[in-house]
Structure formats: structure tokens, C-alpha cells
């Protein structure tokens, strides 16, 4: 099946797997079948080596130094900003803020951009399928400043209800913040349509690209995003780094987020002034090694055929969906057309945790739980689901191993 698959999509998955050292490890004496990619993807040799080599040859703190290593490290760091710019097709590197993760980027926007303009009763529009990272910062504004969160509905198929979304955007709306791809349902949202909708009412729009960045091609200019967020560890890069794209006029108007070194212009005893964007938002020693890893991950993705990868992931998704549909008692959550390679599901009579524990002993790693999406769980009427999520290194055989393990687990618990 693998050979056929490769022939069909022109994608050599066996060669790809050799780039990821961890994939050759065993778990309880079984081959590792890693289907928890939406939580975090594994790292190719290129990323691991880039960080190691950087630490062994070019490491120093950035920006503040005039010596050779500091200047090298600064070049590396700024090259990562430029790589992120390319990756998102942002107009300029100054539009890119390197954060310590996706979550920090949401909090930065909430604190530096949204919070200062919130009066009690002002609204933030999100959807029912957001990740907690795109919910809890708005709850902070609700608790502390009286903001109101409006929840755009999704259909039973997991498709965002655009009419309902539109009806929520009104004169008190300060921001529309919507996922570009759901980490549970796989739904990819029509970003340009949403942006136009928000802009028609003069409201800025933020997209949560933490999942989309690895599955879809992102072009922040084409979708006219005002803010776009993704993180390194889900695109085969390191932990501890995220990217916030923002249009320059928002950036220059935003107050600083964290205070510390690098982000200031002048610090006095009774006064302080701040540097320009992006530095104003990058207080302290930044994630330097992580930036090197992020740049390597982006180069890694640039070096492979995006269309072939996409076709491969879609083939995995289709194969898994078909098999799960055929299995007894399995229910799939999320059937949006064009969805990304994530399947949330449950199995009748088997709690997702028990399922995950049982198939883990066969080497199959899936996620079980609420996936940091409590409101979505409520919307779906469950407390937890299983979730299998696919990466470019997964194979059709792995899907088969997963489904067979799931069947055996179901029988065991019956």
C-alpha cells in the first residue's frame, strides 16, 4: 500500500521517515506509531542538527554585543524572523514578532492591543471550536474589564456558521479571533471571507494558525489577516518559540507587553521610553537557539513539495476516515469539506482514555481528552474524545495498525 501510495502522490514517505530519528524507536517492543502530531510534531534531523551546531559554533546573546559571536548569533536570530516572514508571505520582517510560543502571542495581542481599548460591554467574537489559547485571554478581559465574549456557532459537521458569525460582529466588536484550522475537528475556515466580514465593519481580525501552519499554505496578505499566530513545535520545529504577524500600523500603536532588556529606548529613574516594533515586543534574552531551530524547520518545509505532502496527508485522512467509518461503534467528530488531517472520534462503550492506554501498549500514540477545547466538547455533548492527527511522515500501514488496535480494544471492553 505504501508503494502504491507513493506512486499516487509522488511522495517518498520512507525517505521522509529517515529524516526523523525518533521514528525508528520502539515502544514496549512495538514500532512507534505516532499519531499525536496535532499536540506536537516530531523533529527532523535538520532541525536538531541546526540547533546543536549553533550551540557548538556560533552561540552568544544577541543584539547587545559588538563581538563576532554576538554578531553571528544576531544574524541567525534575524534570519529566523526573515524565514517566518517568507513562510507567511508577510510584507516585511518588521511585521514579525518572535514570541516564546503560540500561547504567548495570544496573550500579547490581548494585553497590548485589545485590553487598552476595552470598555465594559465591548465584545470579542470567537467560535465554539477555539483552543483555550484563543479563549482564556479573552476570559481575562471579561473578568477584569467587563468584556463580552460572543461565540460563533459551528454546524454539526464542524463547519463554521458564517451567517451567525456575521450576525455577531457589531458596533461593540473590538476583535474577531477565529481559528484557521480546528485542532479537534480539522475544519479549515475561510479566512479571507472572515477577514472581509470583519473589515466591512471596521473590526480587525486575528487567526489562530497553530494548526493551519503545518497543514495549509498560509499567505497573510492573501487572506488580509491583521494578526496571525503560529508556533514552532507544531511545524516540526522546537518548543519555546512562536510567531506573531501583525500589520505595521497595529504594531506601532500597541503598548509593550513584557518589560525588560532589548525592548526599551531609554530607562530613567522617573521615566521610560520604548523601542520600535518588533523589538518593543521582545523583552529580555529572546529564544535564540529556538529561532535557529524554527528557521531550520521552515527551510525543511520549503525544501519539500507542499502539494505532494498535502496529497499524502489527505490520503492518510481519507484512508483513516474510511476505516473508522467501517468499524463498529465509532463516531467521527468533524466532517467539514477540505478538512485537515485530524480525526476526532469516540468508540461506543470505551472511554477515550482507556482506548488510548490500551492502544499505547501496541505502540500507537493518540491523544484522548478535551484537547484544550472545553467549549467545543460541550458543544459536541462529550467530555472527551480520541484524536488521531497525521504528519507528513505517517504511513498507510500506520493507519491500519491504529485501526486494528482500536478494534481489538473495542472487543476487549465489550
Amino acid at each position: 500500500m505504501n508503494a502504491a501510495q507513493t506512486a499516487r502522490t509522488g511522495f517518498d514517505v520512507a525517505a521522509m521517515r529517515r529524516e526523523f530519528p525518533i521514528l525508528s524507536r520502539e515502544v514496549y517492543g512495538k514500532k512507534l506509531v505516532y499519531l499525536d502530531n496535532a499536540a506536537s510534531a516530531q523533529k527532523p534531523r535538520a532541525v536538531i542538527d541546526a540547533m546543536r551546531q549553533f550551540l557548538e559554533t556560533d552561540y552568544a546573546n544577541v543584539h547587545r554585543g559588538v563581538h563576532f559571536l554576538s554578531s553571528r548569533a544576531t544574524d541567525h536570530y534575524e534570519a529566523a524572523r526573515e524565514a517566518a516572514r517568507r513562510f507567511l508571505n508577510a510584507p516585511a520582517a518588521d511585521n514579525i514578532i518572535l514570541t516564546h510560543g503560540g500561547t504567548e502571542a495570544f496573550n500579547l495581542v490581548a494585553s497590548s492591543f485589545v485590553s487598552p481599548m476595552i470598555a465594559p460591554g465591548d465584545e470579542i467574537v470567537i467560535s465554539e471550536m477555539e483552543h483555550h489559547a484563543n479563549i482564556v485571554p479573552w476570559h481575562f478581559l471579561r473578568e477584569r474589564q467587563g468584556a463580552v465574549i460572543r461565540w460563533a456557532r459551528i454546524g454539526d459537521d464542524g463547519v463554521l456558521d458564517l451567517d451567525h458569525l456575521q450576525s455577531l460582529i457589531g458596533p461593540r466588536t473590538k476583535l474577531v479571533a477565529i481559528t484557521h484550522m480546528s485542532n479537534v475537528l480539522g475544519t479549515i475556515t475561510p479566512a479571507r471571507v472572515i477577514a472581509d466580514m470583519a473589515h466591512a465593519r471596521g473590526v480587525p481580525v486575528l487567526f489562530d494558525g497553530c494548526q493551519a501552519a503545518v497543514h495549509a499554505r498560509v499567505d497573510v496578505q492573501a487572506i488580509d489577516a491583521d494578526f496571525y499566530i503560529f508556533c514552532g513545535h507544531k511545524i516540526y520545529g522546537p518548543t519555546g518559540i512562536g510567531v506573531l504577524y501583525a500589520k505595521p500600523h497595529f504594531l506601532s500603536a500597541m503598548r509593550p507587553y513584557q518589560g525588560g532588556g532589548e525592548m526599551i529606548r531609554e530607562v530613567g529613574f522617573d521615566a521610560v521610553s520604548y523601542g520600535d516594533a518588533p523589538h518593543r515586543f521582545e523583552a529580555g534574552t529572546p529564544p535564540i537557539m529556538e529561532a535557529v531551530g524554527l528557521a531550520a524547520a521552515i527551510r525543511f518545509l520549503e525544501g519539500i513539495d507542499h502539494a505532494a505532502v498535502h496529497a499524502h496527508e489527505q490520503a492518510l485522512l481519507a484512508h483513516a476516515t474510511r476505516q473508522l467509518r467501517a468499524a463498529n461503534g465509532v463516531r467521527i467528530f468533524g466532517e467539514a469539506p477540505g478538512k485537515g488531517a485530524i480525526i476526532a472520534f469516540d468508540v461506543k462503550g470505551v472511554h477515550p482514555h482507556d482506548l488510548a492506554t490500551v492502544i499505547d501498549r501496541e505502540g500507537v500514540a493518540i491523544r484522548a481528552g478535551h484537547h484544550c477545547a472545553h467549549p467545543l466538547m460541550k458543544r459536541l455533548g462529550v467530555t472527551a474524545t480520541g484524536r488521531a492527527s497525521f504528519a507528513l511522515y505517517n504511513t498507510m500501514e500506520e493507519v491500519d495498525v491504529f485501526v486494528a488496535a482500536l478494534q481489538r480494544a473495542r472487543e476487549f471492553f465489550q
Partner: protein
Amino acid sequence: MNAAGLDDLYREAILDHGRNPRCMGKLDDATHTGCDANRLCGDAVTIRLRIADGCIEEARFEGEGCAISQASASMLTEALGGKRVEDAERLAAMMRVALEGREPPAANTLAGLLAGVRAFPERVACALLSVHALERALGAAP
């Protein structure tokens, strides 16, 4: 299931309690109530007791979650009926030690039945959920 440890985790008794929980439901005249939820996975257990003269006359639980958390709640509440409060407290303490500690518990005890979980550190919290709910119920003002 032949994979190492799984048979020990999901013993027949546990699967049975998981499928057919005992003592499940409301207890309208409860004097003591305690609940706990697992932040990471959403499993939840509420234990209700009717205590009179230092004796647990009836125990019931409600809950939602995996086989381990629900079977543990079922087995525990079943064991509570008719016990004196001190004995219930001792049982809770013993189970905590048995599931978190280094020494394996004796096979034919309640903790012994759940001891398979010790090989699955990320599931110990499931087994202890109802223990914690019980402790809260016993500690709660009547």
C-alpha cells in the same frame, strides 16, 4: 489483551464494575458530599454519604470518565456501606499509600484490585479520583 500490564490494569473485576457500576445514582438524604475532577482529562466523581452515629448508612456516587475512575468509584462506594467513619478514613489513607507508594498492596484488598494502575503512572490519578472525593466528603461539614 496480551500486552504487558494491561490485563493487570483492566482486571475482570474492574471491567465488570466499569460496565455495571454499583451504588451509582443520587442520594437525596445525603449528609456528606465530596467531589473531585481531573483537570487534565475531565473525569469527575461525586460521592454522597448518609452518616448517622459515626456510621455510613449508605454511599452512592455519580461520575463520568474512564473505566478506571468509574470502577474505582463503584468499588469504593460498595465497600463503604455500613463502615464506621474511622474505618472509611483508614481505607482512603491505605488506598492512597497503596497506589502512590513504593510497596505493592496485598492482592486481595480493594487497593490490590486497583494495583495494576501502578504500572501506568498517568492513570494513577484516575484511580485516586474517588478516594479524593471520599476524603472531601468525610471532611465536609454535615
